[in-house]
């Protein structure tokens, strides 16, 4: 007996949304609260500290700027991947989703170089409060990048089999994955100036 999840393609009459879309937005709302709590912690720690270093004292602004450009670019390719599916062009979807995944990988590689440079200089989360909140916020954000890449890679690879049997359902899945990816971009847009430039 098959137990199919309802309203994955058609919108639910009462919400006007597919279940997947409602679910991802609820999840994103919880993510806003998660990062909001950490931003509030940052404000408290910064205001309460007798001295607070400028981010550039410890951090590499050119690398962070590069990562900002990489994430913004990946958001555009994510939109193009979804748009390709709406236009029923699966090969272009594979291309743009592939670029999105590679951008995510590029972001992590840059982050790796940033982190290792810090460790090489003896800067660790325990070194001071600034570095503690820096590693906490960017580490959590990095985990989100990895999570988004995992879902996108699934949709690029084995998950794309759904395209053959139910293209609209697959398109909706890609849209929902894109919403998460854009939130990851949005969080970085605030992390970049707050941690690196102020």
């Amino acid at each position, binding site marked *: 007996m098959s137990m199919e999840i309802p309203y994955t*393609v*058609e*919108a639910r009459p009462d*919400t*006007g*949304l*597919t279940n*997947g*879309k*409602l679910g991802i*937005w*609820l999840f994103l*709302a919880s993510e*806003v*609260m998660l990062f*909001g*709590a950490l*931003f*509030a*912690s940052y*404000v*408290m720690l910064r*205001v*309460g500290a007798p001295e607070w270093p400028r981010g*550039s004292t410890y951090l590499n*602004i050119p690398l962070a*700027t590069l990562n*900002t*450009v990489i994430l*913004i*670019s990946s*958001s*555009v390719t*994510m*939109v*193009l991947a979804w*748009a390709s599916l*709406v*236009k*029923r062009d699966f090969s272009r979807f594979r291309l743009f989703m592939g670029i999105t995944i590679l951008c995510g990988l590029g972001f992590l590689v840059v982050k790796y170089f940033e982190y290792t440079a810090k460790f090489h200089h003896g800067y660790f989360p325990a070194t001071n409060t600034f570095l503690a909140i820096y590693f906490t916020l960017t580490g959590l954000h990095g985990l989100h990048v990895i999570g988004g890449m995992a879902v996108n890679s699934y949709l690029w690879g084995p998950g794309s089999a759904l395209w053959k049997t139910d293209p*609209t359902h697959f*398109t*909706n899945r890609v*849209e929902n994955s*894109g*919403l998460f990816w*854009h*939130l990851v*971009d*949005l969080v970085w*847009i*605030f992390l*970049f*100036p*707050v941690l690196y*430039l*102020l």
Partner: protein
Amino acid sequence: MSESHDHKDAQDGHGDVDRHVRAAYFVFGSLLVLTAFTVGAYFLHLPLRAAITLALLIATVKGTLVAAWFMHLVSERKMIYWMLGLTAVLFLPLLLLPTLTVLDRVMLR
């Protein structure tokens, strides 16, 4: 355009999605320019309060562009707006209440 149930319409005409793609390119360009402004403002070495205000203002504009166009919030269902409105109502105290507890320190600076 973003509603899932509208996909079939978009697939028929492709007009909506083409407009969406054009908007995405425009937002992409805007985000790059605003990123350049953000970094450029850092090198102006503004006083801290002005630097914080300007950096957060630019970040808010960038975030709004991402949310509105990439996340399709310019044309979403009411249910999403209600949900995000409730999130905002809960988010603001989360952010502001802890800050209020140290307002005396903020005012001294």
